[in-house]
């Protein structure tokens, strides 16, 4: 299954079983599946990736996240992409950042939504084809996506 198909199926399931946001959740197995689609058969080693995520979050609607990857960022050895996954949001995907040797420093910051207390997993794709991962846990008091407009 391609990633796009996965998203379409996921969306359709959400429409069918849509009993409020709480009913649709990604699972750790879905995160594994999403990472597997990304890496193929290549092994994912733990390390080189540091996440800066607050351990306790009051509002899951906007959670600051900084990702740093230990890499010299030269033409021969750099970070190609940084993929962010979460286990308990409606979708396992958060974002994919594509970098290159022009970045100079492998450090990206953004703000994400967390629908529950959960683990954020980052998988990093290096120019030599290896994959490295890091993760961080966060406890969320007020979840994102659950409130109605």
């Amino acid at each position, binding site marked *: 299954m391609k990633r796009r198909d996965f998203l379409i199926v996921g969306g359709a399931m959400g429409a069918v079983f849509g009993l409020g946001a709480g009913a649709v959740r990604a699972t750790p197995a879905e995160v594994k599946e999403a990472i597997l689609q990304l890496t193929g058969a290549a092994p994912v080693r733990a390390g080189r990736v540091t996440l800066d995520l607050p351990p306790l979050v009051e509002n899951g609607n906007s959670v600051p996240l900084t990702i740093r990857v230990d890499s010299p960022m030269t033409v021969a050895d750099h970070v190609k992409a940084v993929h962010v996954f979460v286990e308990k949001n409606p979708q396992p995907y958060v974002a994919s950042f*594509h970098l290159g040797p022009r970045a100079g420093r492998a450090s990206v910051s953004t703000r994400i939504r967390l629908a529950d207390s959960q683990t954020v997993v980052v998988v990093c794709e290096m120019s030599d084809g290896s994959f490295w991962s890091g993760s961080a846990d966060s406890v969320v008091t007020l979840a994102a996506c659950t409130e109605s407009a």
Partner: protein
Amino acid sequence: MPSALINVPSSARRGEIIQVKTLISHEMETGYRRTSLGAVIPRDILRLFVCSYNGQEVFRAQIHPAIAANPYFAFHTIATESGTLVFTWTGDNGFAATESVSIKVE
């Protein structure tokens, strides 16, 4: 027109690593929320953010509903030469926005 905030140093030394910070106003409606009547609010998010430096792509982000409203990205690039950094955001419902910032490198 959505408003975007961009923070890039106006001048830099050649070869210096500079930080680029961007923020754009956008609801990032997830498509998972409902109105008080139970109707699903359709998804309306940004999908792609690209930064190019004198025509060469230096940073790209593919994003999903789990990015917070008013998407913020901070990243780094090497100040190679004087020129322009162009930022584009594209999203659902034909959303497209472009901003550019010039930088002086000496």
